[in-house]
């Protein structure tokens, strides 16, 4: 296979990459100029044909999402999801810090396609640097008539505003994000109606991830066929993968969808320090679940992660965290449980109480008072939290259930050993079916 030429990250590392002049000198905003002369439906068609799937975690087809907008709508909003709070994901941050205009062009083309005249970029508050870079880039774009009234003489108007969050993971859920833009607590809404029908200010709204929108420009520029030739048959296009944890070169690396997880860890991220063995990997952000060290020979695409083959929820954000042989899986379990317990919004009983109790149990386990039954208890609650579709308002409880369940099932004996050690060797915890 020929070396892969970066698409989304081609400007990362270029000097002054955040400036409008540099972006334009590398062909930037030419696609917007051309897109504004196209019938908007042709752009939606190209995005559908390219089979672009949302990069924010759920992998929902973007063209289909846009197709849900009512035909007779009078007003449309775009919300750009830059809440990026899923541990350990940071690819949107890299994109905004190094190439804000690529995102702005993607937003502008997408807004023209769905005929939205207002877009909000929902940034988590911790993104101070990306916020200032984006504000500056937006200002420059307005000045160059790439935003605002009658963009490049096309008659199309678009305003893009940054809206800063205030520290809540759940605001990355699309209806939680919408509530947060409206000035309320970020409580996800019951669906339907979906945002495409009734979103921000009760108007048709599309919520897309930063990386998804960045892809749109390249699809319009080079065509759906080109995009489909990258990646696998069902998972098309390039993807930014973040690799962190116990690796030599943590960072964000772009590959075609379907790259092998082992390649990402060994080649891109330079392997494990001192050649240690891998104990566990969470391949798609922690809410997708954990793989054992012997399960990592797997393509990083939307099809390879599921309950049947490896017990995972999906590809998620493609954020890989690597844990080497010295890692305490009990600490990982506790860390994961605490994350979801503190970030559950508290609306649904199963999620609020389930995550809360599991956290308490893991604390007890860490304190040296764990029992083998605790693992069964965690597995049972995890199974029940997202057992019935529609039982919870949003997907957070599924996102909590998968990592916790995969940890207590795949690392059971190890967790029991650790509990025994912490209890001073003599605890009731015995490997159940060793």
């Amino acid at each position: 296979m020929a070396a892969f030429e970066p698409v989304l990250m081609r400007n990362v590392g270029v000097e002054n990459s955040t400036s409008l002049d540099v972006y334009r000198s590398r062909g930037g905003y030419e696609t917007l100029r051309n897109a504004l002369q196209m019938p908007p439906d042709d752009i939606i068609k190209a995005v559908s044909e390219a089979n672009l799937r949302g990069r924010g975690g759920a992998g929902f087809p973007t063209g289909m999402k846009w197709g849900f907008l009512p035909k007779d709508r009078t007003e449309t909003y775009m919300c750009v999801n830059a809440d990026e709070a899923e541990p350990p994901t940071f690819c949107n941050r890299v994109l905004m810090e190094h190439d804000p205009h690529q995102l702005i062009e993607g937003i502008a083309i997408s807004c023209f396609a769905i005929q939205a005249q207002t877009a909000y970029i929902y940034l988590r508050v911790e993104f101070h640097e990306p916020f200032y870079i984006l504000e500056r880039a937006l200002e420059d774009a307005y000045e160059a008539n790439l935003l605002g009234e009658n963009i490049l003489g096309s008659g199309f108007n678009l305003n893009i505003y940054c809206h800063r969050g205030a520290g809540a993971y759940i605001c990355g859920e699309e209806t939680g994000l919408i509530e947060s833009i409206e000035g309320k607590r970020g409580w996800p809404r019951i669906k339907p109606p979906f945002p495409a029908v009734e979103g921000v200010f009760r108007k048709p709204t599309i919520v897309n991830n930063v990386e998804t929108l960045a892809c749109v420009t390249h699809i319009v520029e080079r065509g759906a066929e080109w995009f489909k030739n990258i990646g696998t048959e069902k998972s098309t296009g390039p993807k930014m993968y973040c690799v962190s944890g116990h690796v030599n070169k943590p960072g964000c690396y772009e590959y075609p969808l379907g790259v092998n997880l082992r390649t990402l860890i060994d080649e891109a991220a330079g392997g494990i320090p001192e050649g240690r063995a891998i104990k566990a990997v969470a391949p798609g952000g922690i809410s997708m679940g954990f793989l054992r060290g012997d399960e990592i020979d797997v393509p990083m695409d939307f099809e390879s992660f599921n309950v049947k083959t490896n017990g995972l929820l999906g590809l998620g954000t493609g954020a890989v965290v690597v844990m080497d042989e010295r890692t305490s899986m009990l600490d990982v379990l506790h860390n994961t449980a605490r994350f979801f317990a503190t970030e559950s919004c508290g609306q649904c009983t199963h999620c609020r109480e389930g995550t809360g109790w599991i956290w308490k149990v893991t604390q007890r386990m860490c304190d040296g008072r764990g029992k083998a039954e605790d693992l069964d208890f965690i597995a049972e609650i995890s199974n029940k939290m997202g057992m019935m579709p529609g039982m919870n308002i949003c997907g957070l409880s599924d996102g909590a259930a998968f990592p916790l369940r995969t940890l207590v099932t795949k690392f059971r004996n190890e967790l029991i050993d650790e509990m025994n050690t912490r209890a001073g060797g003599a605890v009731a915890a015995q490997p159940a079916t060793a």
Partner: protein
Amino acid sequence: MAWKAIDRRTPEYDEQAPHVLTEPMKERIRAYFPRYANKQAVLLPALHVIQDEVGHVPPKAMAEVAELLEISPAEVMDTISFYTHFWTHPKGRHVIMVCRSISCELTGGREILAYLKDKLGIDEHETTEDGRFSLVTEECIAACDKAPAMIVDEQVYGHLTPERVDEILAKYE
């Protein structure tokens, strides 16, 4: 964050207290009105303006911002209580946010937090006696490539070691 109360102190509301929102602050807030379809949506930007200027959001400011946005003070309180980043009590001059999520914990974040607690002599969600630093923990701050990481005020610092923490804190008065 959401349903778990971190700070259980009840904010004290004093009706006679002087106004918190100055005219320039109100102007900064009003500048957001054209961006949104209604005034309630300006609440998060408004709270950011207040916290930026005052350092926290006192109860008096909640009532005043409610009036400015033509919503009920209860709605302001409701929103504030949901988000971890809005503070109803004064913080120190500089706020240190230590990331405690998985990549940072794997690479020594816990030791960094312990070091900070020890060095500053305070626990999480407390402020040093001289009012210089407040210490809080955050879930993933999306700086995993620089783990372990923390934010001081608006600046992200990564690859932390105790020595580096000493150097960084020395920069803040």
